[in-house]
């Protein structure tokens, strides 16, 4: 018997429990393998492969441009509409993709979780990480399109604020933390009540309209700003636009509010997820 072997005590958990860091660390290889698996298998038997990451936001931006800018005539912060939408979608897509994959964690992996133990949190964390890869592909394509746009439209001056671009990863981290937090909430709720699967789909649809992806925040009357601030995705989207295109409506109290609600979502999400996870194979 290995004297250094860890002793595992199995007993009912009372109350709430946060993250078992040591356990997570022991399974770090699994995290990277899951990220790699996601990426390696997602586009098997597809023709476009990872190009789908580029194609999907482009098509959405095109539709938005036609519907909201050309037909409806909405203002887009003095930016070319296509760049405006593309930039907003960059942040928005990361949020929805991470939210979707983390919220289905428990139900989608019920078979796996019912047969083998590993820290369940590994799976949503892997989703967060693997979506960063698709985000980077989209970011690269955004820069490429921006360069083409500026080359063909010499009057357009929109471009990244290079002095502050270093903040972009921080904004992404906030976005990741928030999507993980809400995703974990939904994962825990859907494990018990499948109603929330339906809810999640249409929640995301509505959420798009209260986030400044289509409308610039500057167009929202100031008396509504408090309500806008309640949506933690608002500020990341505006920050993206500010950092990548140089225009955006940045307001420090709103950023702080957004960070605080992100932290609340993340911590409660992890707690609820951990509470449901320990016996969810019995109810799934």
């Amino acid at each position, binding site marked *: 018997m*290995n004297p250094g*072997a860890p002793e595992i005590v*199995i007993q009912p958990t009372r109350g709430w429990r946060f993250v078992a860091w040591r356990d997570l660390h022991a*399974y770090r290889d699994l995290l990277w393998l899951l990220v790699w*698996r996601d990426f390696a298998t997602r586009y098997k038997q597809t023709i476009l492969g990872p190009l789908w990451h580029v194609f999907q936001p482009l098509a959405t931006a095109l539709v938005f441009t036609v519907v909201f800018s050309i037909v409806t005539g909405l203002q887009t912060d003095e930016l070319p509409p296509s760049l405006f939408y593309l930039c907003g979608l960059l942040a928005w897509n990361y949020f929805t993709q991470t939210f979707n994959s983390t919220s289905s964690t428990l139900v989608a992996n019920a078979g*796996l979780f019912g047969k083998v*133990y590993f820290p369940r949190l590994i799976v949503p964390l892997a989703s967060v990480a693997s979506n960063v890869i698709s985000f980077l592909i989209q970011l690269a394509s955004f820069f490429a399109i921006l360069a083409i746009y500026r080359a063909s439209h010499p009057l357009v001056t929109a471009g990244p604020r290079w002095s502050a671009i270093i903040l972009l990863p921080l904004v992404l981290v906030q976005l990741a933390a928030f999507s993980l937090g809400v995703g974990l909430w939904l994962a825990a709720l859907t494990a018990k009540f499948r109603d929330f699967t339906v809810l999640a789909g249409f929640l995301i649809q509505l959420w798009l309209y209260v986030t400044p992806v289509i409308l610039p925040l500057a167009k929202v009357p100031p008396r509504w700003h408090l309500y806008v601030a309640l949506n933690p995705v608002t500020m990341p989207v505006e920050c993206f636009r500010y950092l990548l295109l140089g225009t955006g409506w940045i307001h420090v109290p709103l950023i702080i509010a957004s960070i605080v609600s992100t932290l609340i979502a993340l911590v409660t999400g992890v707690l609820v997820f951990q509470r449901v996870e320990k016996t969810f194979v*019995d109810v799934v």
Partner: protein
Amino acid sequence: MSQPIIEVRGLSKCYRLGAIGTTSLREEFHRAWDRFRGRAHPDSHDFWALRDVSFDINAGEVVGIIGRNGAGKSTLLKILSRITEPTSGSARLRGRVASLLEVGTGFHPELTGRENVFLNGAILGMTRAEVRAKFDEIVAFAEVDKFIDTPVKRYSSGMYVRLAFAVAAHLEPEILIVDEVLAVGDAQFQRKCLGKMESVAQRDGRSIIFVSHNIDAIFRLCSSCLWLDAGRVASLGRTAQVATAYLAAGAETQSLRPIADRSRDARLRLRAKFTAVQPPGMSGPASILPFGQPVRFVCVVAVAQPVRDLSLAVAVFSSGGVEIASARLAVAPQVDTPPGQYEIVVTLPEIRLNVQRFTCNVGLASDGGEEDFVDNAATFDVSSSTLSAEQHADTIPAPIVPRAEFTLRRLP
């Protein structure tokens, strides 16, 4: 080595029957409100899958867990593997645990054999470095070296199972938990897996907890045995005593398998219908037929309307799904069988089944056509306990071992 490697104390697990997956939000709020006011929710649906189970396992011991279906074997393994939490009680595991409750958990069909070995290894708790060190051994054990870079969706089911078992067999945990995973795979591979587990236990001194309906495997592999009955420990001790007591207890109970509610083909007439079938053997919880004993089925048939020319068919299938014997019996030729319950006992004295697992189909027909047909009506195992040393039948893959005679003479 004074401390046992596994210490289980008063382990209990309660499931809420009927409530599983069917609670509505309203019911849940009601329950929470009652709990909030300190009133325990009156719950007649509680089902205790395990009740106050305590035992110790020492390092290097191989313990078999036996018991009929629903006795709590799988629940116990799930708790020890940390897949679900107990309702009360505790278990202490002193060492790394790996559990193999299913072969190929987490295999991804699109990935190659090589990629799946790494992924599966990580899921089972190995680091990449550990898998890399064991990789050649795993591939050699699975005998898939030519196909290691082929996606596993192109594998035959045999190759798939071999590779999956190989990964798990090369984990190096102090405690290995194995559920009925050997039921898959052919007899030769089962033997190889059992051999591997034997060597893991004996040479490396690791502890194994092993659940199987295959009493032979339990006899061969396990030094001691835990018998669970209705969630409680019925007996714990040397395998020879516990398993024999278990088989004897089984022989006392009737084991008619009710099959009236099985789904059936819509074209069947069902005027005469099977309500239960008892497979051959020591009509016990696991249906063990001692090698060489006559194969005997008991069928209970309910006749709802008079049927003419009632006949019955029984077919025996090997574990590979091959029909190896089939008998058709004119039970009541040229007469009407009036409504009522009937017991039909069928004996097949002429076939001697080998030490394997078998399943059977049963069918009823009349002059009007097919009355009833039940696929996979019962499963039974043939045990080697009556096999004499010189017969060696268990080393032969054939499902039937005919009685054979020979003469020998020297030719001039």
